[in-house]
C-alpha cells in the first residue's frame, strides 16, 4: 500500500449557531462592540457556537473511492468544503498529495448570457483546467453533453436538462488526482445520471483516481464505493466497508423515525426551515400510530402544525423513499387542482393514501410543509414504516422482491390466432 493521498487529523470547524454560516457584520455592530468594550460594559450576550465538524480523522489511499454519508447537517459538506479549501478549519490539519478538483455543484460560474462554447471555457477555467486542456477536450465534452447543435446558443435558451448535461460534462472531464464530489448526481434525468455514474466509476477504476463522494443516494454510494464514512452531528462515527456502513446508517434513520414522531427538534430538518410541523403520525386502517401497513391497504399521514406568524393555507407534501433513499413517489395538495384549505394558524392536516401499491420493505418519508406558494418547513427521513406482505393478487404469490418497489393491478387479454392464417 502506498502512503495516504489524504490525511485528516483532528479536524474541527465551528460555526455560529442557527445560521450554519457566520452572519456578516454591519459596521454598526462592529462599532457598537468596540464602544461597549471601551465603556467596559459587557457586549452582546455571547453567541452560541456549534461544531459542524469535531475531531475528525481518517486517511484515504491512492485510487480509493470513498462514500461519505450522513443526515443533513452531519458535517459532510463542511468536510468537503474544508478539503477543497473553500473554508478553513478551526482546528486540525489536512495533508493532500496531488491536484485537487472539487465538484460541489455543477455549472459553477455558468452565465446564462454566454453561449455553450463560452461557458465550457469559463467553467473549465473555474474548475482549474488550462485553456489548452479545455481546447483538447472540447469536442469530447460537447459530445458527452449531446449539445452539438446548440453549442453557439446562449445557455439561457437551453432546456434545464441540456444545461445540466453540459455543466456535468465539463466537470466529468476534469483530471485531478483527487476528486471531491458533493451530491451532484441529484440533478439531471435518470438516463444522464447513469451515464455520469458510469463515467465516474470508469475514472476511478481505470485511471486510479481518488474520489470522495458525498451522497444521499445509497444505491449510488453502494455501486461506486468500496469504503464509506458515516457522519453524525459533526463526528465521524463509522468507517468501513460500504455495505456495513450503509446498513448502519439506515438503522440509525429508522431509530429516529417511526409511526409517530416529534418533529419540533428533529435532526432531519432542512436548515432554512421555519419549524412549523410539530408531530407527524402514520395511521393504518386498524391502528394509529402505525409503524407497519399491509400491502394494498390504506395509509394516512397526519401532521400537526402551528404557524408562528400569519395564517396560511396549509400545503403538505410527502416523498416516500425506499431503503436506498431513492424516491418512490410523492404527493402534495398544491399540485392537485382545486384542493385548497382555508387559512389557519394551527391545525392538523392529513393525507389519505388509498390502497398503497408498495412492495414489502422499509420506507421512509420526507415531509414538506408550506403555504400555497412556498415550502416553509421540511423534515427529511422523519417517518418510517414497514410494508408487510399480503396476498394482494389472491393467488398466494407475489412478484419477486428485487424487481421494483411497486405492484399494480393488471388485466390480461389474448386474441386467438388460427394456425395457418396470415394476418
Amino acid at each position, binding site marked *: 500500500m502506498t502512503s495516504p493521498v489524504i490525511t485528516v487529523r483532528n479536524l474541527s470547524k465551528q*460555526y455560529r449557531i442557527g445560521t450554519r454560516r457566520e452572519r*456578516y457584520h454591519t459596521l454598526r455592530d462592529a462599532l457598537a462592540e468596540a464602544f461597549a468594550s471601551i465603556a467596559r460594559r459587557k457586549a452582546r450576550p455571547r453567541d452560541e457556537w456549534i461544531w459542524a465538524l469535531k475531531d475528525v480523522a481518517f486517511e484515504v489511499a491512492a485510487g480509493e473511492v470513498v462514500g461519505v454519508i450522513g443526515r443533513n447537517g452531519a458535517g459532510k459538506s463542511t468536510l468537503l468544503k474544508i478539503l477543497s479549501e*473553500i473554508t478553513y*478549519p478551526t482546528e486540525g490539519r489536512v495533508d493532500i498529495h496531488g*491536484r485537487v478538483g472539487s465538484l*460541489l455543484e455543477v455549472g459553477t460560474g455558468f452565465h446564462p*448570457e454566454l453561449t455553450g462554447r463560452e461557458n465550457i471555457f*469559463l467553467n473549465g477555467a473555474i474548475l482549474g483546467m488550462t*485553456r489548452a486542456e479545455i481546447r483538447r477536450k472540447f469536442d469530447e465534452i460537447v459530445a458527452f453533453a449531446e449539445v452539438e447543435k446548440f453549442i453557439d446558443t446562449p445557455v439561457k435558451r437551453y432546456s434545464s436538462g441540456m444545461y445540466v448535461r453540459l455543466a456535468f460534462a465539463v466537470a466529468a472531464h476534469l483530471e485531478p488526482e483527487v476528486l471531491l464530489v458533493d451530491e451532484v448526481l441529484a440533478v439531471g434525468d435518470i438516463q444522464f445520471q447513469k451515464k455520469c455514474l458510469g463515467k465516474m466509476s470508469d475514472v476511478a477504476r481505470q485511471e486510479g483516481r481518488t474520489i470522495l463522494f458525498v451522497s444521499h443516494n445509497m444505491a449510488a454510494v453502494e455501486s461506486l464505493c468500496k469504503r464509506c464514512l458515516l457522519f453524525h452531528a459533526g463526528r465521524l462515527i463509522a468507517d468501513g466497508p460500504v455495505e456495513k456502513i450503509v446498513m448502519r446508517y439506515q438503522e440509525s434513520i429508522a431509530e429516529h423515525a417511526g409511526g409517530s414522531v416529534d418533529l419540533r427538534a428533529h435532526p432531519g430538518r432542512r436548515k432554512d426551515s421555519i419549524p412549523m410541523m410539530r408531530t407527524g403520525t402514520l395511521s393504518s386502517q386498524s391502528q394509529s400510530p402505525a409503524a407497519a401497513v399491509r400491502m394494498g391497504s390504506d395509509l394516512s399521514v397526519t401532521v400537526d402544525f402551528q404557524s408562528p406568524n400569519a395564517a396560511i393555507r396549509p400545503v403538505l407534501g410527502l416523498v416516500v423513499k425506499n431503503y436506498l433513499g431513492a424516491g418512490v413517489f410523492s404527493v402534495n395538495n398544491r399540485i392537485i387542482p382545486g384542493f385548497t384549505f382555508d387559512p389557519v394558524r394551527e391545525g392538523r392536516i392529513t393525507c389519505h393514501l388509498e390502497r398503497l401499491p408498495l412492495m414489502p420493505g422499509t420506507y421512509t418519508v420526507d415531509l414538506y410543509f408550506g403555504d400555497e406558494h412556498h415550502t416553509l418547513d421540511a423534515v427529511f427521513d422523519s417517518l418510517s414504516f414497514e410494508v408487510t406482505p399480503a396476498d394482494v393478487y389472491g393467488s398466494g404469490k407475489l412478484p419477486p422482491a428485487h424487481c421494483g418497489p411497486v405492484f399494480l393491478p393488471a388485466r390480461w387479454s389474448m386474441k386467438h390466432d388460427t394456425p395457418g392464417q396470415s394476418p
Partner: protein
Amino acid sequence: MQELVHKAAVPDRVITPRGGWLSINWREIWRYRELLFFLTWRDVTIRYKQTALGILWAFIQPFLKMVVFSVIFGKLAGIDFGEGVPYAVGMYAGLLPWQFFSEALSRSSTSVVGSANLITKVYFPRLIVPLSSVGACLVDFAISFVILVGLMFYYDIPPALPILMVLPLIVMTVLAALGVGILLSSLNAAYRDFQHVVPFLLQIWMYVTPVIYPVNILPPGWRWMLLLNPMTGLVDAWRSAILGRPFAWGHLAASAGVTALVFVFGLYYFRKVESRFADIV
C-alpha cells in the same frame, strides 16, 4: 509507484486553521492567470451582450460626460485651465483617469459579494475576483482614451515630450484603483454598509479631486489636504502629460507614496479576511 512515493514526502496542500496576517502568494496567482483572463473576459462580454449598441456604450458614456461637463463647468461656470487650453481637453485629460478609477472602484467593491456563487463552491486565489473587475475596466479605459486622441486632433494640440509619462501614469492609476478596490471589496464582504458608502464616497471624491477644475484654483493652505488623496497628484500629472506642461513632481511623489501604502495595506487586509469569505458572503 515510484512517483507516488516521491510525492508522499511533501504534501501538495496543507490545510490548517487560518487567521492573522498572511503573505501574498504571487506564484499561485500567476498559476491562475487564465482564470483571471476568463473572468475579466466574462465581465466585459456580459456587460455589452444584449445591448443594441454593444461596446459603443463604452464610447458614448465618457463622450456625453465630456460634453455636459464642458458646457456646465467650462461655458457656464467659466472654469479655465489657462494658457488657452480648451476646457474640454484640460478637463478630459483628468476625467479619463478619474473615470477609470471610479468605475474600477465601484465594480471591484461589490465583486467579492457578487461572486458568492464562485467563492462558496470553488477554490482559487480570491484576489482574482477584484483583480478581474479592475481588469475589465481597462477595456473601457482604452476606449475612452480614443476620445482623448480625437479631442487632441480636433483642437489641434500636438503631443509634446511629457506624453511619454502616460505609460507610467497608467500603471500608477491602475495600482491606485487596485489598492482601494481590493480594500473596499474585502470591507464590503465583512461589512455590507460599504455598498451604501461607495457610491456616495465616489461622488464626494470626484469633487475633491481636481477633475473638473485645475489644481491651482485651490487656496495654497488646502493643497496639503488634497495630497492625501492619491488621485490629486495623478490627475494633475495626467493633465501635464497630455498638455505638455511641466510636472509637479512633489505632488506626484506624494500620490505615489499614498498609492503604494494603500495598495500594500489593501492586499494584506484582503488576505487577512479572505479565509472567512466563504462563511460570510
